C-alpha cells in the first residue's frame, strides 16, 4: 500500500531577488511536504524567508523576486507556479489568506462583488447563484445577517470581519491547500483566537491541508501537527510539532523558545538570542546563517553549510553540533 500523494510537496526551493544573474538568494534549499488534510507551520522571524516560501508556492512572488530552483507538486502533480496555467489552480486548488485584512480587500468593490468574483473565477455559476453561494460562505465564516452584508463595503467591516471575508473567499472552492500567511498578526488577541479556530474548523470540514506561516511558536502548538523552522532563508529544524517544541534540537529553535516570556509563571530575566535577524539574508552563502548569533558556534559553522540530517524520530535539523554521534550525542 502506498501513501496518498501529499497535498503539497516542495523540494530544493530557491528564491532570489534582484536582477537575473546578479540576484541574491532569500530562500535556499527549502523542502517539505504536507499530507492531505495535514497542517504544517512555517516559523521564522523577519528575513527568514517564510513569506517568500509561501508566495513562491502560490506563484504570487512580488516583482523582482523569482523561483530559481526547486520542484513544487500539488497532489503529486508537478506545477510551475510562475507559469500561465497557475491562474486556474490558484483559488481552486491552492487558496491563500494574508496578514493585513485592512488592505487585502479592494476598497472600491463591495464584499459581495469580491466574493462573487472568487466564486465565478472557477465556476460557470450564474451571477445570481454565485451571490447566493457568497451569502452561504459569509454564513459559514459566522458573519451575522450574511445576505445583507454582501452589499457592505470593506471599510464598514472590522479587521476580524474582513479576515473572515478573506477566509470565505479562500475556501469557496474547497482547496486542497490553504496557505495562511500570518493571518492573525494584525488582529486583536481575542479576535486572533476566534480566527484561528475558524480556519482550523473549516479546514477540517473541507479536508483542506493548511500551511500556516507565523512568527509565533504558541500558535504552532495549538493548531499544527508539523513545523518547519526557518532562519535566514534556510531550514534550521523540522518535524512533528510535539517533537520539535517538546525537545528542540537546533540552537536557534531552543533560543526562540527561551525568548518568549511565560504566561503561567514568573521569571526574573528572559534569555534572549543576542543580535538581530538579518532582514536581507543571503541564503546561498556558505556557513550556517544563524552562526553569527549562536552562542555555540564554532569555526566550521561560519564556513561550511551544515548538512540536513535526521536528529531524532521524524525530526531533522541542520547543525554541525548535532553531528558527532548518531547515538544521541551533540546537543540532543
Amino acid at each position: 500500500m502506498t501513501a496518498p500523494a501529499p497535498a503539497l510537496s516542495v523540494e530544493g526551493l530557491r528564491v532570489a531577488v534582484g536582477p537575473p544573474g546578479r540576484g541574491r538568494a532569500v530562500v535556499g534549499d527549502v523542502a517539505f511536504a504536507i499530507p492531505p488534510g495535514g497542517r504544517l507551520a512555517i516559523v521564522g522571524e523577519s528575513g527568514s524567508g517564510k513569506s517568500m516560501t509561501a508566495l513562491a508556492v502560490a506563484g504570487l512572488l512580488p516583482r523582482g523576486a523569482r523561483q530559481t530552483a526547486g520542484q513544487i507538486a500539488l497532489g503529486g502533480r508537478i506545477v510551475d507556479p510562475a507559469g500561465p496555467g497557475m491562474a486556474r489552480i490558484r483559488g481552486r486548488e491552492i487558496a491563500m489568506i494574508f496578514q493585513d485584512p485592512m488592505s487585502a480587500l479592494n476598497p472600491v468593490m463591495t464584499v459581495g462583488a469580491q466574493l462573487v468574483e472568487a466564486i465565478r473565477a472557477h465556476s460557470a455559476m450564474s451571477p445570481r447563484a454565485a451571490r447566493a453561494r457568497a451569502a452561504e460562505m459569509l454564513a459559514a465564516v459566522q458573519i451575522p445577517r450574511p445576505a445583507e452584508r454582501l452589499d457592505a463595503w470593506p471599510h464598514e467591516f472590522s479587521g476580524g470581519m474582513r479576515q473572515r471575508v478573506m477566509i470565505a473567499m479562500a475556501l469557496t472552492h474547497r482547496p486542497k491547500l490553504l496557505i495562511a500567511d500570518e493571518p492573525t498578526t494584525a488582529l486583536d488577541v481575542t479576535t486572533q483566537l476566534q480566527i484561528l479556530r475558524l480556519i482550523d474548523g473549516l479546514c477540517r470540514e473541507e479536508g483542506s491541508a493548511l500551511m500556516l506561516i507565523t512568527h509565533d511558536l504558541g500558535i504552532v502548538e495549538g493548531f499544527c501537527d508539523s513545523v518547519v523552522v526557518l532562519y535566514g532563508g534556510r531550514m534550521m529544524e523540522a518535524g512533528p510539532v510535539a517533537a520539535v517544541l517538546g525537545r528542540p534540537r537546533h540552537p536557534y529553535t531552543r533560543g526562540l523558545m527561551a525568548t518568549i516570556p511565560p504566561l503561567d509563571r514568573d521569571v526574573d530575566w528572559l534569555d534572549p538570542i543576542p543580535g538581530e535577524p538579518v532582514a536581507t539574508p543571503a541564503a546561498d552563502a556558505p556557513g550556517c546563517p544563524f552562526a553569527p548569533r549562536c552562542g555555540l558556534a564554532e569555526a566550521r559553522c561560519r564556513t561550511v553549510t551544515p548538512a540536513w540530517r535526521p536528529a531524532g524520530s521524524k525530526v531533522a535539523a541542520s547543525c554541525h553540533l548535532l553531528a558527532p554521534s548518531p547515538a544521541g550525542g551533540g546537543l540532543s
Partner: protein
Amino acid sequence: MGSGASRQERGQALARAAARRLFDLAVVMVGVATVVFLLLRAVPGDPVLILGGLDTLDRDVIARARAEMGLDRSLVEQYLIWLGNMVSGDLGRSLRSGVPVTDLILRAMPPTFQLGIMALVIGMVISVPLGVAAARRAGSPADLGITVFAILGISTPPFVIALGLVYLFAVEFRLLPVAGYVAFADDPAGNLRAMAMPALTLGLVTGGVLVRMMRRSVIDELGEDYVRTARAKGVGETAVVYRHAVRNAAIPYVTILGLEAGVMLSGAVITETIFAIPGLGRLMIDNINARDYPVVQGTVLVVALVYVLINAGVDGMYRLLDPRVRAGAAR
C-alpha cells in the same frame, strides 16, 4: 457605520453638503471679483485715453466719457456698484462697443467649452490605454516609448505643437483649414474640421500629463495587497488590471483630470489666438489690451465660476468612485 445611516439621514447630509458648497461658491466668487477689480485698477493706463487716442480728445470730452463710464467716482463706489450689479447678473457693458458683457461672454463660451471638452476627451482617449499599457509593462521598451511620448507632450510648448500640426495637416496634406471658426449649428463638419487641430494641440499636452498620472497610479495599485488577493483567487490578469487596479487608480486620475480641465482654460488663450477662434481666451486678451474693464472682469469671473464648478464636479466623481468618501459625507 455607513450602512447604518438611513436613506433620509443620508439625504439630509447630502443637502447639507450641497448648501455648504453653494456658500463656498459665493465666497469664492466675491473674492475673485474683488481681486480682479483691484488688479485691473492697479494696471497703468486710462481706458478713455486708450479708446480715443491721446491727442484727439479735449478735456471736456474726456470728462464726459469718464462720467458715462462711471470712472469719475471713487474706487469704493465703483467697487460697490460693480458688486451689486454682479449679484443681479448684470456684468455691465463693454466700454468700447457698448454691448452688454453678458452677451459677449455667452457668444464666446461655446467655442471655448467645445475646445476644452474635445481636448479632454482626446487626452483621456490617449492616456487611459497608454498609461495602463505602460504600467503593465513597466521598465520595458514599450513603457520607455510611451513615457518619452508623454514627456514630449508635456514639455513641448503648445504653440510649437500647434505650428507642427498646421504644417502637417494644413500645409503638407491640405486636410484641415489653417485657422478660423464656424459654429457647429451652421456647419457641423466645418466646425469639427476647424476645431480638430486646436483640440489636438491641447489634447496632446493634457494627454502627456494624464499618461504619466495613469501609469504611476496603476503601477502603485498593482503593488497593493488587494491585487495580490485577486490574483490569489485565480482572477485573470486582464480582469486584475482593469477591474481592480484601474478602478482604484481612477481616483487620483480624476484629481489630475480636474486640474487639467482648469489648465485648459488658460491653454485656450494661446490656442484660440493661434487658430483665430472667438472664445473666452481671445475675448480676455483683446480686452486686457484695450483696458475694457467690464469685459475683462466679467470674463475672469466666468472663468473662476467654471473652475469652481469643475472642482465640484471632481468631488462628485470622488463620491461616485470611492465608497469611503460617500461614507465620510454621510457621517
